[in-house]
């Protein structure tokens, strides 16, 4: 795998080279659509992720934002090796995860953890919370002594702001916010370096969401964690992330430092996205233009030619349907895929 990686992509995010933890280059994930039972032939490809490159430094939180179907979750699943990417490299501390067999992958499974969106379906309803937290430590032989393991479970509950009595309870006895804390505790049980937070706070109510956001931030500082924070909620992303990448239809359209991206967005899609987010302050809202992006997201099976955003773009020029825009650095650390800016 080399030809598919273009020069620019490799250079993306080079500013802080040296302690790169995750290095994703030219990642592609195409899902085949098949027809027929006997002949089973591939009739089309869903291009969920179509050439995405980024780096995450140690201790950094990278936000991955975009609307449904833009490929942000698939990107996360590829890093977790829950999907087998079609093309591209995923380097974790310099090791290409795609080339490892399942046995070689084991130590990385411990270092890379995930927190899922839905706290209702991601916990086994037949296991007590204590068992849910202890099982990964048992499987990975992190703590082999049962008593020490139980102690660690209580520690984890405490760290995540839960009372020790929850160890003997089942998931259905807990609220959504408490379950999400269990999901976080389970990820922490492995002493991970890197956590993929896939819409980790999206299913929670406002006041509970704020509690969990604060918890994630505290844990990041305390244990020096690195996050890939996947979310569609731009306000949360602005709050928690150091750098932010915007995806649209399997492509990365913009990548910059958090405040830079939100204060000076360059790509027309990013601008439209930010404009669409309502701000909880009527005095600010009354002064905003409320310009609305037209149309809907096209199908990733048959994406538009050239720049995938051109049918909805208000600055699209004649060339846009023909040329795939290169992902270029327009300011130090600010990357954009658009020819018209």
């Amino acid at each position: 795998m080399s030809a598919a990686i273009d020069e620019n992509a490799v250079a993306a995010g080079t500013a802080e080279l040296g302690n790169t933890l995750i290095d994703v280059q030219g990642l592609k994930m195409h899902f085949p659509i098949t027809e027929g039972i006997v002949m089973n032939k591939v009739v089309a490809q869903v291009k969920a992720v179509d050439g995405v490159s980024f780096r995450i430094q140690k201790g950094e939180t990278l936000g991955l934002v975009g609307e449904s179907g833009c490929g942000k979750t698939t990107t996360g699943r590829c890093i977790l090796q829950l999907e087998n990417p079609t093309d591209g490299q995923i380097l974790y501390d310099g090791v290409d995860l795609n080339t490892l067999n399942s046995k070689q992958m084991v130590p990385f499974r411990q270092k890379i953890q995930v927190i899922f969106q839905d706290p209702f379906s991601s916990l086994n309803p037949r296991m007590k919370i204590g068992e849910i937290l202890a099982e990964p430590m048992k499987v990975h032989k992190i703590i082999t002594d049962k008593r020490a393991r139980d102690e660690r479970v209580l520690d984890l509950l405490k760290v995540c702001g839960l009372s020790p009595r929850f160890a003997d309870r089942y998931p259905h006895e807990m609220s959504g916010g408490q379950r999400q804390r269990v999901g976080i505790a389970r990820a922490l049980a492995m002493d991970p370096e890197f956590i993929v937070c896939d819409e980790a706070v999206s299913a929670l109510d406002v006041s509970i969401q704020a509690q969990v956001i604060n918890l994630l931030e505290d844990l990041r500082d305390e244990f020096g964690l690195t996050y890939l924070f996947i979310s569609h909620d731009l306000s949360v992303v602005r709050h928690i992330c150091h750098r932010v990448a915007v995806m649209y239809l399997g492509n990365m359209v913009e990548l910059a430092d958090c405040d830079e991206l939100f204060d000076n967005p360059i790509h027309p899609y990013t601008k439209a996205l930010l404009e669409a987010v309502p701000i909880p302050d009527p005095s600010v809202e009354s002064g905003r233009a409320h310009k609305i992006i037209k149309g809907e997201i096209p199908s990733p099976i048959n994406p538009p030619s050239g720049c995938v955003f051109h049918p909805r773009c208000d600055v699209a020029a004649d060339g846009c349907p023909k040329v795939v825009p290169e992902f270029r650095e327009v300011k130090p650390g600010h990357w954009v895929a658009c020819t018209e800016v």
Partner: protein
Amino acid sequence: MAKLLEIEDLHTQFFTSAGTVRAVDGITYNVDEGETVAIVGESGCGKSVGAMSILRLIPWPPGKVVKGSIKFQDKDLLKLSDAEMRKIRGNDIAMIFQEPMTSLNPVLSIGLQLTETLQHHLGMTEKECHARAVELLGMVGISEPDRRLEQYPHHLSGGMRQRVMIAMALACEPKLIIADEPTTALDVTIQAQILELMKELTRKMGVAMIIITHNLGVVARYADRVNVMYAGKIVETGTAEEVYLRPKHPYTLALLKSVPRIDHPRGQKLDPVDGQPPDLARLDDGCPFRPRCRFATDKCETSNPTLEDVGNNHQTACWNNDNLDKEQRAAS
């Protein structure tokens, strides 16, 4: 402006094996003609049940409106017969539900679902219905309406389905639309499209709207008035500006401090309320917010405050809003 809807001391309860759940526990509010009123609160605070009670859609058993009155154009909806109520639903009061996926019938074409209310309430002929349906779909921005009428819900995207729901709600030119989390299931750019559309159409047709949401940003952008609900009660009510800029209830204040804002630079710590909302089956006589409240005093333990005027058409239900006021002024 003339009052369109007057809700007084409404109590809706669910009688379950775990006890009586007081989902709506005495709410009082009005909706004027052409006005947009938002009801905000977190899951389980009774905002949806309150709205369903207006249309008498609470399933019995286990739920029942046990007390109160709901006056719509001076008729008490709770006293109407089922037949009279059916004439109001979808005709004078329409509803838009959260899940466009489950609230449309998957085995009926869009055209059939759209024209059903027209035939039922207005007695239109098939030809008139078709013409009106085409007009409605055009109004909500759906292209090729003729072709769309033949299609089924699964042919449409989430945003399109919600547009169809709006067209259905507008079909009989209602006086009031109740929208229960109309955009929660949608992406943000589609959410903006749908909300703009709803605002434009309701303003143009002079329709009043009750919008139920947990998104404080949506309220700030679209609502004239806000009711904040907590544990089955309205704890604060006022114009959007008053409530957001000068909150008088500790819960409202806490909510506003809990939301991360897209226009605030990163690195600011959120200040959430600790704890969780109470179990609605085990409410006592005190203020339901007191276990989470910084301002709570002994009085809050024993008696539940009612809405009191604090000026500027702004009401709050808190014994200690003077203390809150002092702190707010000191902070600014």
